């Protein structure tokens, strides 16, 4: 796991160097006559403030930012680029609101989440037993499309529509396909039945990628259902 806090403050060459390991899970270091390829498969998490001073908010009521528009734009331009095209999940973390605390729902502990995640990973290992990869995040685009396709035409259309409209690169489509499988695997664990990613899972995966708001049922497990 690699966590880069204040991502836009990293040097450009450092940011660009992440491209290869993010794509292939390996890193190749070349010196004059030799080159060596090393494994570099990590879960990469980057964090960023909304602006250099950190006090920007889209709501005028909460905005306390003192940065100029130019500074803000320059700061944000470092987040959007070839590296972030390789990032599967974007989330905007808001300050806690009064409606967020739900005294009637038991919050899942990290240990409970871990059990679900481990079970989802086992499902993946079983599904990909005949493949060269074990996890959704390692699956190849053609492999997914040919042997682990989405559930139906509606789901496929949703994905190709996002590509055709220019909202998603082809690389992004593969990544959304992978995340849709992860959403389906977690749903399978929770429901105890096999879920193949369909329209709902692709929709959630697309929203996870763009940072848009999710269906609340996809975020918070309903109390009493485990």
């Amino acid at each position: 796991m690699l966590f880069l806090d204040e991502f836009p403050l990293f040097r450009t060459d450092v940011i660009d160097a992440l491209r290869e390991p993010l794509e292939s899970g390996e890193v190749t270091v070349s010196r004059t006559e030799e080159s060596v390829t090393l494994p570099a498969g990590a879960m990469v998490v980057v964090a960023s403030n909304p602006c250099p001073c950190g006090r920007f908010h889209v709501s005028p009521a909460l905005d306390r930012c003192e940065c100029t528009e130019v500074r803000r734009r320059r700061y944000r331009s470092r987040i959007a680029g070839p590296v972030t095209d390789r990032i599967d999940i974007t989330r905007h973390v808001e300050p806690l609101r009064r409606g967020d605390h739900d005294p009637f729902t038991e919050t899942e502990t990290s240990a409970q989440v871990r059990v679900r995640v481990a079970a989802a990973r086992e499902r993946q290992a079983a599904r990909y037993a005949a493949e060269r990869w074990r996890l959704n995040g390692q699956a190849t685009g053609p492999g997914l499309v040919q042997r682990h396709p989405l559930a139906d035409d509606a789901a496929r259309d949703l994905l190709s529509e996002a590509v055709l409209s220019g909202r998603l690169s082809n690389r992004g489509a593969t990544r959304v396909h992978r995340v849709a499988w992860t959403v389906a695997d977690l749903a399978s664990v929770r429901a105890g039945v096999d879920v193949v990613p369909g329209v709902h899972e692709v929709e959630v995966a697309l929203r996870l990628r763009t940072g848009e708001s999710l269906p609340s049922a996809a975020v918070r497990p309903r109390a009493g259902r485990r």
Partner: protein
Amino acid sequence: MTAVPPSAPPGVGEAERVARAALSRVFEPGDPRQTVLVAELGAEALCAHLLAEADLAGVRTDYGARLAATDGAQELERAARRGIRFVVPGDPEWPPGLDDLYGVAPVQDRGGPPVGLWVRGPVGLHELAGGVAVVGSRSASEYGAAVAGDIAAEVAGAGLPVVSGAAFGIDRAAHVGAVNAEGRTAAVLACGVDRAYPREHARLLGHLVDHGAVVSEAAPGCAPQRIRFLARNRLIAALTGSTLVVEAALRSGALSTANWASRLQRTLLGVPGPVTSAPSAGVHQLIRSGAATLVTSGAEVLEAVGRPGEHLLEVPRAPERARDRLTARQRQVLDGLPVHGGARVDSIAVSAGMGVVEVRGSLDRLARAGLVERDATGWRLAAAGRD
């Protein structure tokens, strides 16, 4: 305008209450054949008619027969033992707003004032009249749930009760927001008030029974059949003074509540969402057609539902900058200064398109305001002047 039923019972006779309890058990909630007749004749008279026809063949005998087998007094006693009260017209707790339903035509064969409402919890029905109904999609987005919770917290925190339907999504967020703000909140159910539906909300409903109110037109024990939600929606609109819709897909139950609110002349408010978001499409339609007023915060809801002059809002505006206090011609001079380095007065006058004398005077004033500085090369922008 409020239509008053011609023979609304002035006080509550015990016999009338018993008759209403029996009718509530026998008829479907909101069946207009019952609600309107009871509003016009009173329950005792209607029961007498139905019982008299119990021996005849045909549809009406069905009700008559079932009514004959129902003991209203026993219904009331059994309910009371379980902490359930039956509120009928003439009770101090009866909200006059429910009588407004008498003047409104049924929708999908559901309408009219309820014959009575079964209630659990310390909050009285009459307290809900100044409250806000917060309704919306069961499959809400994170955004919708967060906004509903926030607004409910602010509204309830300001002392107004929040009424909703205890469903998943927006309903739940609204109740929870009000609870977090330690405000009053009431749930109007489609099933009996002794049933936890949805099952997952048993703890929430338990809290409302202890600290808020759980209300239903359906007699205790009744199941949440689909048609009962249509009848329930009209009550949510009628019990409160205003209805707020946060995320409602086209053709959703929340829109049915909104429709009732409009027809009952209640204030109808809507929270917008992204135009690409399906759960917001119904709200956008309400706003676009002029049926609902757009609101974006609890403060705006309070202003919209308050009496004239109450909860007035200041119009949000961007923070004032030094530049905003200048006259247009002073701003013209400021814009005449180069971005980098200094410039002499005559060169500034040329780029500003103004006379040298006026520019010199303006520069002195701008310097006092801290927007420009003078040095060896002439005048230059100060840090405050670059904003």
